[in-house]
C-alpha cells in the first residue's frame, strides 16, 4: 500500500484527491464519450439526449466512402488517402533518420547527447501556428511544386521528438558488450549494429513508428495553413464540412478515428509496457 499518495482511509485528503482525479477524467473523457453516444443517434439534429438509437450515420459514412461524388471539390476519399499516405511517409522517414541518431547519441559523448536531445525537442514546444505560417511563407516564397511534401516536411519536424525519445529509451537498455562480442567474433561494426542492436530496439522503434503515424494522421494546425485544393487531409475535410453546422455523419466518422487511435495507443502502451514513459 502506498502510504501518503492515495491512502485507503484518509478523510478529507483522500476525498479531495479523488474528486480532482475524477474531474480530470471527466474533462478528458466526456467530449469523446458524447461524440460516440451521439453518433448512434437516429435523429437528424444533434439534440441531446438522442431519442432513438440507430446505425444510420455509420451507413452514411460507408456511402460517403463508396459513392465517389465528383461534384464535391475535395472528396472525403481523397483526403483520407492523402492523410494516410502522408502519415505513412512521415512515419517511415522519421524512424529511418531517428534510429541511427539514437544510436549515435547513446554511444557518443554524454555532453553532446544532452544538447542534441534539447535541439530535437524544440519542435514540441514551438508554437504550431508559427510553424504553420513559417512553412507557408517559405512554400509561397519558393513557389516550388511541392505536392504532398508541403505537408510531409513540417509533419516530420513535428514527430521527430516523439520518435527520437522512443528510440533513445530503447537504446538505453542495450549494453555495449553485446556489440563488442559480435565484433570480436568477426562481425563488421555495421553488421553488429544491424543484427544485434536494431533487433533489440524493435519495441522502441515500433512504438515510435506508431506514435508518428497517430500524430501525423491527426494533425490539424500546421496542415490548416499548408493545405491546398489539391492536397488536403481528413481533419481539414472535416473542418470545412462542419464549419457552419455539425452533421451527425461526421460524428460517426469521428468514432472510426477515435477507435483507430485507441487501438494504436494501446499497442504503443503494450510495446513499451512499464519500461519507458510515453513522452
Amino acid at each position, binding site marked *: 500500500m502506498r502510504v501518503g499518495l492515495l491512502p485507503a482511509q484518509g478523510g478529507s485528503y483522500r476525498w479531495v484527491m479523488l474528486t480532482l482525479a475524477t474531474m480530470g477524467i471527466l474533462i478528458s473523457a466526456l467530449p469523446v464519450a458524447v461524440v460516440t453516444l451521439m453518433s448512434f443517434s437516429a435523429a437528424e439534429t444533434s439534440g441531446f439526449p438522442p431519442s432513438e438509437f440507430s446505425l444510420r450515420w455509420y451507413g452514411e459514412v460507408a456511402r460517403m466512402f463508396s459513392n465517389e461524388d465528383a461534384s464535391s471539390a475535395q472528396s472525403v476519399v481523397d483526403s483520407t488517402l492523402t492523410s494516410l499516405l502522408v502519415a505513412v511517409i512521415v512515419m517511415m522517414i522519421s524512424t529511418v533518420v531517428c534510429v541511427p541518431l539514437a544510436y*549515435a547519441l547513446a554511444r557518443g559523448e554524454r555532453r553532446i547527447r544532452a544538447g542534441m536531445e534539447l535541439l530535437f525537442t524544440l519542435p514540441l514546444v514551438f508554437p504550431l501556428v508559427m510553424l504553420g505560417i513559417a512553412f507557408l511563407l517559405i512554400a509561397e516564397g519558393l513557389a516550388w511544386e511541392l505536392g504532398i511534401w508541403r505537408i510531409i516536411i513540417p509533419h516530420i519536424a513535428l514527430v521527430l521528438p516523439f520518435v527520437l525519445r522512443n528510440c533513445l529509451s530503447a537504446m538505453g537498455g542495450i549494453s555495449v558488450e553485446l556489440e563488442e562480442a559480435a565484433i570480436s567474433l568477426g562481425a563488421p561494426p555495421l553488421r553488429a549494429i544491424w543484427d544485434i542492436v536494431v533487433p533489440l530496439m524493435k519495441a522502441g522503434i515500433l512504438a515510435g513508428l506508431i506514435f508518428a503515424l497517430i500524430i501525423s494522421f491527426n494533425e490539424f494546425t500546421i496542415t490548416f495553413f499548408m493545405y491546398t485544393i489539391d492536397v488536403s487531409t481528413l481533419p481539414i475535410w472535416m473542418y470545412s464540412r462542419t464549419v457552419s453546422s455539425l452533421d451527425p455523419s461526421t460524428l460517426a466518422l469521428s468514432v472510426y478515428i477515435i477507435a483507430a487511435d485507441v487501438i494504436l495507443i494501446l499497442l504503443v502502451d503494450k510495446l513499451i509496457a512499464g519500461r519507458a514513459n510515453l513522452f
Partner: protein
Amino acid sequence: MSNSTLTRKQALAFAAPAFIAILPFFVACLYILRFSLSGEQGRIEGFSIDAYRNLMTPFFGRSVWLTLRLAFFATVIALMMAVPLAFLLTTLKRPVARRTLTVIILLPMILNLLVQAYGWILLLGPSGALNTVLRNLGIIDRPLFLLFNETGVLLGLIQTSLPLAVFPIVSAVRAISQEHLEAASSLGASNWRIFRDVTLPLLRPALLGAASICFAFNASAFAVPLLLGGRRVQMMGVAIRDMISPLFNWSGAAAAGMILIVMTLFLMIFSAWLVRLTTEKTKG
C-alpha cells in the same frame, strides 16, 4: 568519453539524416525572424522594426493579456488535476485499469482536435448535454452560454494540455521512495502534512517542468480557440492567423509570432532555472 565506441566522424554520419530532416524546421524559424524585420508587409525587403511597432495597439495588447491569462489558468487547473491523476495511475495495480486510464488521459492530446471540438459543442452548446440536463432538473430556465466564449476555450485548453502535465509527474511520482512516505507516516504526520512537506517538495522539479510545457502549449494554442472560441476569443494564435488570412499582413504576423515564441521560450528558460535552483537547494 569512456563508454563511447564511436569516433566523432562516425557519430556525425549516423546523425546526418536526422539533421537533414529537422533542417526545414530551423530554416522556418530563421525565415520567420527575418520576415518580422522586413520593411514591407507582403515580402522580404529591407530592414525595419515597423512590424513590431505596429503591434503596439490596444487590440494586440488585449490579445497578449488574454493569452497569458487563459494559459495561466488552464495550466494551474490542469496541474491541480494532474497530481491526483498521477497518484492514481501509479497506485492502480490492475493492468486493465491502468491502461484504460492511460488511454483516457492521453487521447485528448493525440486525437484529431476537431473531434474534441465536436464533443465540447455537443456537451456545452445551447441544446447540448449539460444545458439539457440542467434544464430538466429545473436548475436553469434559459440555456447557459458556455461555448464561443472564454469558458469554452479554457475547458478545451485544460483538456488538451492535461496529458502534458500528467505524464512527467507520473515518472516523478514513481521515483518517490516508499521509505520517505512511510517514515513520515510512522512519525505521525497526517496525509495533508505528508503531501505538503514530503510529496510536493519531491515533485517540485517535475511540477515546474510540467507547468512550463503546459503553459507554452496553451499560450500557443490555435485550434482550440479557433474551434471553441469563435471570433470572440482572440488568443494570439487566432489573432496571428487573422493578420494573414483577411489582412495579408505577413510581416505583422511574423512579428507577433516572434513575440509569442520569445514569451514561451523565456518562460521555459525561467522555469528550468527555477528547477535548478530548487534541486540545488534540496541537495545542499
